[in-house]
Structure formats: C-alpha cells, structure tokens
C-alpha cells in the first residue's frame, strides 16, 4: 500500500479514541498474561518460558517491539513535476527514506530489491520511477508480476486512482490494465495496444504472453521496467520456474531491443538480494532500512496446556484461539485470525459467529476469507474491514499477501505459519503507524509449532529463512528450453542456464522438436519444428506435467482436483482421505495406469497418513566431510500402508496395508552418517539404537523444514541401516532432479543437529510424541533417550577440538556460538 503521508482518517482517529484502544489492548493482554507486559518489556527476563505464569494459559513469550518515527527524504530531482503534483494532491509531499533510495536506484537504471514491512508504502518505490518514465516518454511500458490474480486486481485499483489524479491535473492518459486468465478475449487486443502498465502473473506471462510475443511487440520494444512484487513467494519449484520464465522474458526483450530494469519488493527473508539475483540473473541493489513509522507492538506466544502427559496431547489450539480472539473482540478491538487450512478457517469463523453475532440477519461482523470465495464477496469483506463494519476476519494465508484491508488492532495466528517470514507478514497485518497493536501466536501440537513456541529466541533473534531456488534443475530447465525455442530460434552460441545448451538442444532434436541449421556454433541456429505449443504442458506450480486427477463419484462423476505424480500414491491410495475446501472424500479406487483416483464424499473425524518405504542409493557425492555429505541419489519408494489419524489430537486410530507400484526418482540429497564410534558407545540394545535413529530422523525432518523455509511435502526422509554399525539418514529433495535444498542443508549441518537436539530435549513428553521423535507406538520406549544421546555425541564430534580428521565443517564459528548460547539459556 502506498498510503498518503497524512491520511484524513488518521487525523480523524482522535487521540482519545486511540488512547481508549490502547487501554482496551492493554487490558486484554493483561488478561492473557497478567503482569508480563509491565516491567522492562524487552528485558530477556520477560520472555523466560520457565517463569510460572499466573494465567491459565501458558504464555511462553511476550515481546515488546518499540515504536519508530518516520524518516523522510525529499523527492529526487529527476521526478517529473506532474507526478509530484499528483502525489501532492493525494497527500504525499515527501518520501520515506527507503522509498527515496529505491526511486534513486530505479531512475538511474539500477535493478533494485526493497525489503518492505507491511504498510511501509512499497508500491511508491516502483510506481514513482515507472510513472515518471511514462510521463517523460509516453511510449514507455512496464510489466508488473504478482503471484496471485487478486493482488494484481488490488494494485490496479490503486494505480488507476493515481493515474486518474494525473489525468485530472495534467491531462496525461496512462493506461493500466490487468491481463490474466480472467481477461475476456475481446478485451485482449485493446490491452495489447493501449496498456502502459500491464499487471499480470508469472503463469500468464509464461503461457499467454511470451509464446505470443509478436502480438506484444509494442510492449517488449518499449519495456522499461519489470516489477516483481512479493518476491519471497518465488521459492522452491515456483521460483525455479520463474527464474526460467525471466530468462525467456529477457531473450524476448533482447530480440525487440529493450533491456528493462527489475524492481522487486520482498517481505523480510534472509537473502532477498541473492534471491533476486538468482531469479533475474542480474546484480541488484538492496534497500532494507525502512523509513516508515511504526507503532508499538506486543508479540505473544501461547502454548495450549498439555492435557495428557503420557501421549503429549495438548488442548485443541483452535479452542484456545477462539478464547484469545474473544478477549480482544469483547473489548471492541478489530482483529484478524489466521488459520492453517480452509477447514480450520471455517471452523473458527463458525465459533466466533456463535460468540459474537446476535441473530441471523444482523450485519455480519465476523467473516471468513479464503481461496474459493468469489471475487465479489472478497471485495465486500476487504471493504468491511477497511471501514470497520467487519470486526473480525478469519483467513487462510490468502490475506497474508498485500491485499489492502487497512490496519487492524490484533493479529491472532492459529498455528505457526511454517516460516519466520510468513509469521512476520501475518503479524504485520495488525498495527498502525501510531498506537499500539498486538500479535498472538497460538501453537498447535505439530512439531514445528512446538519448537518455535518453546524456543522464542529462535523466532525473535534470528534472521528469517533463506529462499532457495534451483533454476538449473534439469526437469524444469528442459521444459523452458522447449518454450524458449518455440518463442525464438536459439543461436548456436547462445546460453540458457548453467548446462550446455547445445547438448540439451541436440536431445530435443532427436525427438524432432527442434532442427539445427548451419554447422559451426557461430553461424548455426535451432528452430522449433513441432506443431505443439510447449507452454501448455508446463505448470509453473509443479515440476512435472504428469499428474493424477481426482474424480468425485458421489453423484454425477466430475473432476474435483489434481495431484502431481510424485505425491499421487501417498495421497490417493485406496481408502485415503482426500480433503478439498474442508470437504472430506475417501478414495475408493486408484487407477494407477490411467492416473485417476475415484473418490466419494465421506463424513469422518480422521485423515490418513501414508506409510512409505523408501530406499536411497547414492549415485554421486558432491561434497563429503565424513560425517555429512550431499549429492545425487536415486530414491525408490513404495507406499505400503497407511495410518488413520484423528483430527486435532493427532491420535493414531487405525491402519491398513496397501500394495502399490514402486516409484523411482533421481534427486539430490543431504545425508549424515552415524559413525561406528558413536554407535558403539551407545548403552542400548540394537533395537533401541535403531529406534533412536528412527526418532532422530523424524525430528530432523521437522527442523530441516524449518531451516529450509519449505513445505512438509518438499523434503523426504529415509534411513539406511543396511550397515547397522554405520547407519545413514537421508533428507532428500522430494522433486525429480532436486530443487536446491541439499547443498544449503549440508552447509547448515551443525545448526540442524543443534536445533534438532533442542526440539527433542525441550519436549515435555516422557518418551516421544508427535512433537519430537514421533508418537509412542511408532518407535520404541527408548527412542527419545537414544536419539538425544546420538545427537549429543554427533555434536560433540563437531566441536573444534575434535575437528582433526580433515573434515571441513562448513558452519561458521559465529553460528555455533549463537547456538550454544541459546542452548544454555533454555
């Protein structure tokens, strides 16, 4: 949002109403955690998880984030008077320092990535240089890419407002259009001719614009700027695809003689500049010091109390969220509640409606919000939030990105969002430029949630995750080389990514997809010689176009979803519960060859978790330190059975056996080898040692997910105990060809072990639970003890004094110091 400097509504929010809100917030916080807010709030004392709280809730942390004043800078001289005038008319007389810095870079033609906290006015960072360029030369064009269609619509509304002001004051007409799958066919020609600013998404660029670039010749000839909003969304598979789409985009730009400047904005991640440079293959300037003002904010961590110590079962985090939300709502504070799934969104909405809406037909003050709602309903909810008529919204991550809903008082998160970056994003949905706000994280019993809530400093005192991409994953790269060859013939001496392009093209030629003319590299070219339209077969959101479709046979058979090939057997095996939009289906038959799963609607209180046996064979070792390595592997996996897991409590309530075909995948992996020296000193029976390894792997998977900023499905784990004296644990990229997780994990080896040890040691359960080494019953009684002992021995062997075997532990000493300090404070 680029908000005007002085908003009339801000002034209208009188000091007294502001103050009364602050009082209400203080009261609610005191109720949640009596006595925890007052003393030096940033004092580490106040975050001590062990200090007994008088409250019935288990508040593990309460942090105060101090307010900050605005820092302003004047408009750079090069900014056109007409633009300055229009901005002035909208209440913007000067820029924040970070905006001015970004604008300077953009005006000078330098690629720039801006780190932007919520409500810091990121859109001005790119709208100022772009509108300036168009005012100076009306033939200039810019392309904006947003990860979702909704964001593009939101931005169009804002840009159009600004352009209307410009038109009203100086008569300059600037065309702003969205171009996506919803754009009607008959409007497309007009847009191609008239749009100065095209707002689209990577999928549309990939399949709708680049393959038809001649129709867009005017855009590409005059393309001055490319905006990539929400850069942090492009990680993993999606990011690796985007990097290739941008390679194609830049080829097309070269063809038409343009060389656009990239302007990116990102939420706080550890490596914004590196990510931008990987995606766009250019050098970037980084702007990361926000000059935007910020009100005081409290950040609270809540862990629902344990109700069954033996099984490690906690009170439902959804009920806990309901109670906490109620504390704020009954004090007339406006809140947003983030839920982890569409199902829990609907459940929480129902709870809060029950509690706070008087009677059916009364104005709806509590609303749900998620993907699947129609655009009109969404716009209505967003407006209700901005105007205050809606007092609470319960949302999936759909509202995590920059949709304008105004600034709310409190953000309550039901469950850890999965990454530090996303948590800050969601917390940022509450908070104004002045006055107090709060963010509350309610942990579920998932391991990651438990780790975070029990180790607050891991969240508060550490940089957020690194976003990783691997644009040269051969599976992804080959698809885009096809698309690129379709778009423009490849010159013999051209490059596209890290691999030898000529060798890949030669393989495509064997298939008849391209044809090479001319003999020597400098004078030859590769032309597309196929009737197909390759972009249609490539989805940017998955790695392979091979997939399973899900057919609902409850009534008239209809396709209700699809799942990529790799995860098909594990999620669509017979008797599996398939969930879509909160609706439960049971798989009745899986047609493996036909790639179809036939499901029927069902009402049950459990979901299923497949038991997959996998065997990993090392094909090539890239780096090896003796204790840990990474390289290329073959994973052969087979789904052999499944467990039925009860919703919310994660209790195991049944199981079944399955017989499905094997799947093979070449990918990259990180692995650790537990040396005989460690195994030999373990004072346990062989079976207990094995349990220790299994439990260790279970916990490592959770922590790896945390460190890699990835989804649970992105990585797989496998244990190799063929050599009982020297077992191995593999953490592999769960995508053919790998997606770039293995090397970073190898580098983070020590951190991974330390954090895994913390996760297990901190867990309140007796001998294992779903929150650490896995539920009892999965593993033996000694799994937890043995896993901890193994970890301690492994970490011990990493300490500097023991590093004499020529291994090159790649974790920096600074990291190590930080970890051990943390270990001591906990």
């Amino acid at each position: 949002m680029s908000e005007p400097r002085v908003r009339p509504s801000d002034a209208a929010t009188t000091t007294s109403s502001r103050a009364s809100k602050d009082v209400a917030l203080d009261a609610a916080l005191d109720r949640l955690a009596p006595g925890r807010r007052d003393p030096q709030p940033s004092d580490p004392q106040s975050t001590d998880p062990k200090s007994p709280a008088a409250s019935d809730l288990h508040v593990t942390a309460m942090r105060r984030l101090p307010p900050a004043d605005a820092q302003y800078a004047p408009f750079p001289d090069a900014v056109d008077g007409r633009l300055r005038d229009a901005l002035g008319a909208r209440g913007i007389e000067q820029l924040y320092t970070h905006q001015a810095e970004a604008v300077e870079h953009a005006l000078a033609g330098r690629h720039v990535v801006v780190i932007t906290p919520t409500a810091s006015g990121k859109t001005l960072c790119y709208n100022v240089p772009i509108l300036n360029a168009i005012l100076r030369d009306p033939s200039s064009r810019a392309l904006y890419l947003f990860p979702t269609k909704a964001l593009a619509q939101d931005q169009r509304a804002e840009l159009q407002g600004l352009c209307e002001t410009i038109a009203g004051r100086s008569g300059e007409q600037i065309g702003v259009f969205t171009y996506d799958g919803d754009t009607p066919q008959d409007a497309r020609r007009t847009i191609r001719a008239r749009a100065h600013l095209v707002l689209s998404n990577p999928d549309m660029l990939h399949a709708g614009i680049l393959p038809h670039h001649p129709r867009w010749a005017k855009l590409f000839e005059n393309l001055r700027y490319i905006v990539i909003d929400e850069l942090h969304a492009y990680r993993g598979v999606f990011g690796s695809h985007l990097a290739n789409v941008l390679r194609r985009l830049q080829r097309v730009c070269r063809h038409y003689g343009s060389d656009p400047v990239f302007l990116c904005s990102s939420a706080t991640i550890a490596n914004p500049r590196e990510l931008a440079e990987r995606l766009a293959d250019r050098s970037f300037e980084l702007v990361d010091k926000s000059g935007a003002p910020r009100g005081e904010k409290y950040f609270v961590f809540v862990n629902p109390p344990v109700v069954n110590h033996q099984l490690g079962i906690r009170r439902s985090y959804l009920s806990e969220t309901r109670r906490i939300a109620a504390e704020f709502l009954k004090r007339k504070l406006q809140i947003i509640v983030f839920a982890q799934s569409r199902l829990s969104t609907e459940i929480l909405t129902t709870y809060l409606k029950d509690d706070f809406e008087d009677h059916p037909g009364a104005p709806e003050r509590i609303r749900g919000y998620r993907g699947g709602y129609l655009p009109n309903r969404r716009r209505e909810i967003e407006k209700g939030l901005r105007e205050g008529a809606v007092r609470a919204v319960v949302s999936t991550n759909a509202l995590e990105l920059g949709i304008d809903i105004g600034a709310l008082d409190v953000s309550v998160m039901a469950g850890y969002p999965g990454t530090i970056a996303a948590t800050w994003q969601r917390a940022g949905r509450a908070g104004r430029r002045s006055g107090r706000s709060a963010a509350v994280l309610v942990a579920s019993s998932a391991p990651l949630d438990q780790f975070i809530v029990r180790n607050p400093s891991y969240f508060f005192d550490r940089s957020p995750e690194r976003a990783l991409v691997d644009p040269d994953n051969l599976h992804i790269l080959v698809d885009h080389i096809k698309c690129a060859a379709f778009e423009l013939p490849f010159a013999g001496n051209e490059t596209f990514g890290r691999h030898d392009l000529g060798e890949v093209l030669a393989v495509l030629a064997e298939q008849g997809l391209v044809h090479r003319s001319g003999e020597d590299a400098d004078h030859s070219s590769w032309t597309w010689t196929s009737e197909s339209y390759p972009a249609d077969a490539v989805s940017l959101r998955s790695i392979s176009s091979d997939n399973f479709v899900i057919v609902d046979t409850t009534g008239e058979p209809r396709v209700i979803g699809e799942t990529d090939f790799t995860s098909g057997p594990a999620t669509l095996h017979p008797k599996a519960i398939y969930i879509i939009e909160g609706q439960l289906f049971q798989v009745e038959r899986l047609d493996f060859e036909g790639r179809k799963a036939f499901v029927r609607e069902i009402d049950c209180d459990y979901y299923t978790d497949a038991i997959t046996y996998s065997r990993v064979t090392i094909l090539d070792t890239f780096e090896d330190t003796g204790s840990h390595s990474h390289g290329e592997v073959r994973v052969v996996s087979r789904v052999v059975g499944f467990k039925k897991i009860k919703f919310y409590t994660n209790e195991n309530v049944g199981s079944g056996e399955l017989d499905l075909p094997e799947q093979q995948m070449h990918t990259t992996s990180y692995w650790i080898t537990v040396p005989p020296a460690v195994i030999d000193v373990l004072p346990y029976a062989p079976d207990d040692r094995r349990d220790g390894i299994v439990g260790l792997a279970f916990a490592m998977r959770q922590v790896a997910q945390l460190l890699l900023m990835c989804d649970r499905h992105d990585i797989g784990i496998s244990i190799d105990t063929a050599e009982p004296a020297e077992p191995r644990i593999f953490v592999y990229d769960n995508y053919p060809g790998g997606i770039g997780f293995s090397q970073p994990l190898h580098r983070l080896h020590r951190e991974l072990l330390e954090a895994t040890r913390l996760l297990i040691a901190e867990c309140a359960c007796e001998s294992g639970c779903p929150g650490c080494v896995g539920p009892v019953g999965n593993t033996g009684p000694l799994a937890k003890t043995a896993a901890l002992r193994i970890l301690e021995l492994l970490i011990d062997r990493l300490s500097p004094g023991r590093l004499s075997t020529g291994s090159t532990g790649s974790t920096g000493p600074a990291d190590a110091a930080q970890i051990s300090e943390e270990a001591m404070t906990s």
Partner: protein
Amino acid sequence: MNLSERARSVLRTPPPSQAVHVVAGTGPGVEHALGGEWREADGSRLFIVERCWDARARHGAIRVGDIAAELSANASHAASLGNLSGGPAPPFLFFDLETTGLSGGAGTYAFLIGCGWCEEDGSFRTRQYLLAEHGGERAMLLALASDFSRSGTLVSFNGKSFDAPLIEARCAFHRLAWAGHERPHLDVLHPARRFWGDGDCSLVGLEAQILGAPRSGDVPGFEIPGRYFQFLRSGDARPLAGVLEHNQRDLLSLAALSARLLRLVDAGPAETRDAREAFALGGVSLRVGVTGQARKAFERAIALSTGLPSVRVQALRALALLERRERRFEAAAACWRDVLDVPRCPPQLAREAAEALAIHAEHRARDLPVARAFALKSLDGDARRGWNDAVRHRLARLDRKLSDEASAGRRSLLVQAETGFDPPA
C-alpha cells in the same frame, strides 16, 4: 550419467538408434524436386515456384479463362459478399498459407506462402514462396508485401481468422509493417458457408460439390507440417512437391469459387440452383439494400425449399421481416403463418412467429381473441426469462382490453334492454 543421458531420462526418450540418422543434403535439392528458382533478396535467398494455368484449361466444370472473365466482370459485387473496409477493387490477389501447425504463437510460422492472380490473357498464375533455409522469412514477408501492394483486394479462405493474423504476427516478429491492413480483404469462407453450408464446407469439399473438380492424390492437411519438418531434417524436398501442388490447387479453387459467388450476385435469383443459394443471395442483396432482388431471392428459396424445412423457415422469416419493414403487414402475417405450418419448426422461430402474429392481430387486425391465442402460443418454458415476462405483460394487457370490451358489451346490452331493441343475432 552425462547431460545428454540425463536430458533423455527427463524427456523419457530412448537414445536414438543409428539407423534414423539422416545426413542432410543427400536427397535432390529443392530446385530439382520442386522446379522453382532461387532469388537474392534482402541479403538472403528466397525460393520461388511459379505455375501458370492456360485460359483454355478446365478446372472441373469451369474454364480457367471464364474464372478470369467472371472476376473482372463482376468485381464490383465483392462488397456484398463480405465486410470489406474500403471499396473492393480489382485486381484480386488470392493467398493461402501452409504453416508448421495450427496452435498459434511465435513458434508457428508459414513455411509456404502461395499467391494467385488472373493474367490479362485469362490464364491463372500462382507464385509460391518456400522457406527452404533458415533466415529466409524476412525476405519472404517483404516479397509478399510487394505482391500485396500491387493488388486491389485480397481474397482468402478463412484468412481473416487464420492466415492474415499469422502473417501480421510474423511481420511483428521481424519488426515489419503489415501491408494487409490497407487492402480490402474478402474471406470467402463466410459467404461460402451461407451459400453452400449444408455439406462439407472445406475448400476441398466445395471444390468437388460446387466446381465439380474432385481432387485425387491430394496431401491431407494434417500431414503437411510433418512433411516440411521431414524436408528440413533430410534436405530431401520431394515430399514437399505434393504440398506445393495442394496449395496451388487451393488457390485456383479459391479463385473459381469467388468467381462463382460474384456471378450469382450479378445474375440474380434465376441463376441460383437451390433453396440455400437463393436464400443466401437474398441475405446478400438485403445487405447492400437491393430489396427487390432480395424479395425475389427469398420467394425463390421458399419455392425451392420442399424437403428443406430448415431453409424454408429461415427464408419465410427473412421474407416476413422484409415485408414488415416495407409495411406490407398482411403479407408479413401470411409468412409468419407459413412459418408455423413448417413441420418441426424450431421453437425460437415458432415463438417469434407467434409473437409477430399476436402483435399483428392486436394492433392491425384488431382481433383480440386471436391476439390472445397467439400470445399464449408464444409462451415458451425454454425461452430466457425476459421473453416470457414480456409475453405475460402482453397477455395482461390483452386481458384488460378484453374485459374492457366485455363490460362495454354489457353496457350496450343494458342500453338495449332499456330501449327495448333486440340485440343483433
């Protein structure tokens, strides 16, 4: 695994066997196989094949020389056949592309562009540009632009939706201005559908049906891209000979069909051979405002339409609308009644006819009970909502008028009773 092997495993393709390795350039070259010539242009080479049909040669039932004669005699009628910007003028330039696919996008291009025109002496000449080597496309487009610039009207078959946008995109690809914009462009597909649309409306189908010149040994369209790719890989141009011939024949037939259409427009309804042609001619005449000819054409269509109920209802409807426009209401009503008499009349036409008759009865014939009966008939459960709302509105008005009339009738009875006169029988 090396990169090639990994790429093959990604593509799930086996390594190539040695046998399929074709050494380029072993077959006969293009000149030898196709009989054209190379020309230097715009820094690259252009391969051109020309062919001429003598005026005395026959194309099915028609003489080539007659095609030229009809085209030049009836050129002024071209405007009635299509939505032409600018006045269509001779000379006509027929064009047709053979492309590397139908999917569109930058990877689809024309490897063969054929142009055809009639010469002064009545012969028909085709000129084809073949993309015989990489890098020749720009020169080919420039040569085409120069051919276009010598023409008065472009004529194609489905060219407005396919060929012209494709050339336009290729021009944009090479940063060339697209010359086709300034010329009137007649797309024969649309009038052909109207005049002969009952059966196979492909060029090859029409050729057999209308021109009496069935093809034999033609290369089917789906084989064409593959033959070109084969030529690129092997250098052997022989598979292309059939493609060139296919394209030449398309051009000649396109010219012959255009001539036939213009002849029909010029000669009027008497020349039409069946109900459909007559009906289509009526539409064409109506469009250019020759209503007298339009009426005759529709009447002929109706007369010839025995056994063709679909054409019959359309012709009756068209005539009814024309009559109403000319304020011959009784004649229009007669047509609408005939519409309702056609067996298996499509419901949307039946309700349109019933509505028209209800209006006629209410406002012209002033017969309210009949109007009410037709209005009831025009109710249709399958119609869109607004339709039935309008009908109900009409019915309510008719009922009001009918009850007003009834009470007026009662009043007159009262008057009669008081005055002692007997009501008329």
